[in-house]
């Protein structure tokens, strides 16, 4: 069977989506990157291989996410695409009429505005990561609640308390204070959901016209408390697609399929699942060629230099064809 693989290497999670030639998701994997991107990709490849029938043939591979370049070097990608486009493509494949995409991932959040099936505007959070997945993770941990139950508990709240959501640091101290005053955990969690939604709408979505259908995706979409808070604040239904957690990977897979189908002669760059068993390592050095002192990263497979990046002038990266 012909398949296309999408990999979304993010700061917090690394996701895989495998689609068939009709774009249907056959298999998806959601892994924690846990600060070891190379290992995580290889683990994902191994898991994929174990689960799949032997007649699967990978015809194309797409990578996205903040680590898209690294992922591409390790697996051999046909398409390397930014996560905004990938998310939009995936969303359109699931809900073709979508006009607004709210995406909250591990460390970034985005809003994508579409009209008539075309992206017309987007925004990403800048320096502030308040209200993204890793912050929620940390707060759940601090309260001793499994992150999976976060939303469910928040939904029980009848009197949500108001949390200052401007900044993750202040939100945390505000939560601690509210705990000390004796507020219930569910009220604090619900208050946190509302604060994050307010913060998102005031910063990331500032000045954007949010029209239905609104799709909510990314890892945080698993949190029913945040979904509900969005619905209350926006006054409209918020849809969470089936594959909300791997939308970036799904988008990358769809883009790979598109790229390959546009050029049937082209063979995929995919190194095969064997890539998972090869040894990869990253090394860095500081280039002393000029006062910029760029940190150059080199990726090796065994002894073979696969890629270099990090230099501003191209002195090092030019020598290596990725």
């Amino acid at each position, binding site marked *: 069977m012909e398949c296309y693989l999408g990999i979304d290497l993010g700061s917090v999670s690394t996701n895989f989506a495998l689609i068939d030639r009709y774009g249907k998701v056959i298999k998806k994997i959601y892994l924690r990157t846990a600060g070891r991107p190379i290992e995580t990709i290889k683990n994902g490849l191994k898991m994929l291989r174990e689960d799949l029938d032997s007649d699967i043939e990978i015809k194309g591979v797409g990578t996205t996410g*903040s680590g898209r370049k690294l992922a591409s070097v390790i697996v051999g990608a046909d398409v390397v695409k*930014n*996560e905004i486009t990938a998310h939009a493509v995936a969303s359109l494949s699931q809900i073709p009429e979508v006009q607004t995409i709210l995406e909250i991932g591990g460390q970034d959040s985005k809003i994508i505005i579409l009209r008539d099936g075309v*992206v*017309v*505007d*987007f925004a*990403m959070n*800048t320096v502030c990561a308040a209200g993204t997945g890793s912050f929620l993770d940390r707060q759940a941990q601090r309260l001793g609640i499994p992150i999976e139950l976060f939303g469910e508990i928040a939904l029980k709240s009848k009197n949500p308390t108001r949390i200052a959501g401007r900044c993750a640091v202040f939100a945390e101290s505000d939560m601690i204070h509210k705990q000390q005053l004796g507020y219930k955990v569910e009220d604090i969690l619900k208050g946190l959901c509302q604060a994050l939604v307010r913060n998102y709408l005031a910063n990331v979505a500032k000045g954007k016209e949010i029209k239905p259908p609104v799709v909510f995706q990314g890892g945080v979409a698993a949190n029913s408390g945040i979904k509900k808070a969005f619905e209350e604040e926006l006054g409209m239904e918020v849809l969470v697609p089936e594959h909300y957690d791997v939308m970036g990977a799904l988008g990358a897979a769809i883009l790979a399929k598109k790229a390959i189908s546009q050029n049937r002669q082209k063979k995929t760059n995919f190194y095969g699942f064997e890539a998972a068993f090869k040894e990869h390592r990253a090394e860095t050095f500081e280039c002393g060629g000029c006062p*910029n002192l760029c940190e150059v990263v080199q990726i090796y497979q065994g002894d073979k230099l696969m890629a270099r990046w990090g230099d501003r002038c191209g002195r090092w990266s030019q020598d290596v064809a990725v």
Partner: protein
Amino acid sequence: MRIGIPRALFYYLYYPFWKTFFEALGHQVILSNPTNKKILKDGLELAVDDACLPVKVFHGHVVDLKDKVDALYIPRIISIEPKEFICPKFLGLPDMIKSSIPDLPPIIDSDLSIYKNKRGFYEHAKSIGTKLGHTEKLTARAFRTALKKLNSYKKSQIIEERLPLDSGQKSFFEDYQSKNQNYGESALKVLLLGHPYNIYDNYISMNIIGKLQRYGVKVITPEIIPTQNLSAGSRYLNKKLFWTLGKNLIGSAYYYMDGGQPIDGIIHLASFGCGPDSIVGELLERKIARSRPVPFIRINIDEHSGEEGFNTRLEAFLDLIEGGSRR
């Protein structure tokens, strides 16, 4: 005498004049190195915290130059167009430098204001001439030569659509090779709005122009738009914008949007801590959001900017405008 000119701020607008003028007076002009990590670091360390990114970068260039020259040229620029101002930080620039950076050579900080009339430009030159001990006759001659050079440079910049980009150590003024490749009819055209010292400084702008050009995009900036079109564009505003640079940005955007000029996208590159930009950006956003005839993105740059996030936004924006043209 060796006169040092920091490769920052108004260098990108007036270097042709400055270089010709000082050389006509018999001096040697020395430029600082193109912005690099060390220059930025020095600037961040020495400048006052409240300064904007380009002013901090300027500090770094002064450090880079100060031990290589006999005098530094840091004019006190007040106004470069009649009845208009530029940002007040330029007005205090020589004082900021003097108070923040130790062991400086003498500074030529003559006022430049043509708020009242264009003669202010000559007054500026005369004051420099006097400070350097030249006769008024020689100064006047040098002024005329330099002004001619500046005007012919600006003219050719617009006609040949040549962006003032340095290539390596070479200044945009010396490097006469036309950098604007031949773009086909189908090439995407992007209007890049931003202060000259942000968009043409390859380090600060993270080479935004080069990146766009590598994607085959034709980059248009206020500097290559004829002046009359800029002022025609800025007339659409209800009230005159009295900041020259801001007016140029708004004028360019309005000219392309209301003047029916075809353009595929507008990018506003603003630097963190820029007061005028915060208002200009808001005006642009409102104007564009009202009808959204053109895709628009604002990218903020600051000293902490990660290049990865910058590239992601830029790539996504290009995907967006390409998608739009296919429709």
